[in-house]
């Protein structure tokens, strides 16, 4: 049986394993955001429509987490950082990254990664990798 998304409102995983981050876009503000919010978090505009976000981008910031934070049962070390997604206007998302071999500016793509979920059973979260 295929694994479930860690949060179906944030990450869609299709039957073929293809992952998509679920964001939003406001025509009034012209801005994209993630995760999908009821109103534009930059301006408060209430005309947000759902938006499937691009699956590629470039690393803007990167650090490495050595000790598992509370509630996290996955492997350490792991990378954590911010990716600037392709497309306009600028949208930065916080994401898992590889722990090593990553530099600012690297091109990365969206993949799924198995982790123990909130209930302990394995679920799929996302990671950006070269």
């Amino acid at each position: 049986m295929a694994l479930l998304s860690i949060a179906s409102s944030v990450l869609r995983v299709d039957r073929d394993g293809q992952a998509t981050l679920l964001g939003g876009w406001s025509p009034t503000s012209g801005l994209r955001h993630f995760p999908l919010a009821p109103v534009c978090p930059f301006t408060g505009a209430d005309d947000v429509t759902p938006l499937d976000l691009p699956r590629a981008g470039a690393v803007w910031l990167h650090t490495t987490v050595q000790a598992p934070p509370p509630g996290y049962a996955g492997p350490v070390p792991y990378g954590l950082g911010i990716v600037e997604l392709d497309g306009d206007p600028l949208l930065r998302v916080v994401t898992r990254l590889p722990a090593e071999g990553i530099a600012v500016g690297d091109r990365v793509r969206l993949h799924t990664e198995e982790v123990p979920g909130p209930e302990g059973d394995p679920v799929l979260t996302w990671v950006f990798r070269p």
Partner: protein
Amino acid sequence: MSSEVRIAGVGLHPFGRFDGLTGTDMGVVAVRAALGDAGIGPRDVQAAFCGTAYGGVAAGHRVLGALAGTGIPIYDVEAGCASGGAALQLGAAAVAAGRYDRVLVFGLEKMPKGVIRSSFFAPWQESAGLNPAPAFFALRAQRLLAETGLTDDHLAQVVVKNRRHGVANPDAMFRKEVTVHDVLSSRMVCPPLTLFMLCSPNEGAAAVVLSRAGGGVRVAGVSLRSHLPGNVLGEESPLCGIDDTGVTPPSTLAANDAFAEAGLGPEDVDVVECQDTDAARELLAWAELGLCEKGGQAKLLADGDVFVGGRRPVNPSGGLLSKGEPLGASALGQVVELVRQLRGEAGPRQVDGARVALAHVIGRGANACVTVLTR
């Protein structure tokens, strides 16, 4: 303040690790000390405001109950690292407005060791590992270094400064000097932040008595602000806590308010206690509070201005890097330190002739609080 608010008494329970003591126990110690300093008893205050983030339901009531001081209104206030500042602002406003003549403001915390679990994050974010606070501090530190040309060495110098100051503070958890080499060679937590560059969440309590009449240090201005738009720590855009280009940081908003209320400016300040959750956070605060331009931090360190004995010392108590950070107590711990500085009671870490002092905290929710005190 429309009506003058004075600090009639201060008290502290040391910050550290105290097995066998509850948060209530520590709160009682701090409150009794503050009441004693003011020369009054627990029934002589008309309201109480308690800052705590992890203290649970009715944390303030438990302390007042232990002192047989119940019956008065007791407000438990949560605003992340600024919880004690929020309590102070509410208490000062209530006194200034004439609602009460004398109130008690205190903060307490007993925190688990290690990285703190916070209800701020959804369960899935924890499972995905998107919640490690030190990693977000590290990303912000990287931005600071990239934007200003400051280096790891400057981060280490902040730790050296605060730990040197902490040696003279009997209420601090760490009272041993460290060198730049010690800091840089301590365990790497999240690049560029090493273990010594991060403060320890711990335990403690602090209390002040506010009065509308009488003498004492004056609360000249106090303001609590938050981020708009965006949050500091979290997965959501906008990520203004990490990239605040085009956005006024909440610390600046709070400082502007507090200075306006006090009729003073950054140039008038003699001594500062500011948030140093990590070394980069302190360097950011200097610019946000108007103590220097962005990038001017290197000169303040090189000239020794920010050391005790310098032109305008920052964190003479040793800061959170020496004391540790009991969230609800940390802001009021700063105020207790600054009242002692303004009274000339700070002993070997005394800032000579200090007349104007500033306390600053910022944390989750992007709650920032700035308090300006004068004598």
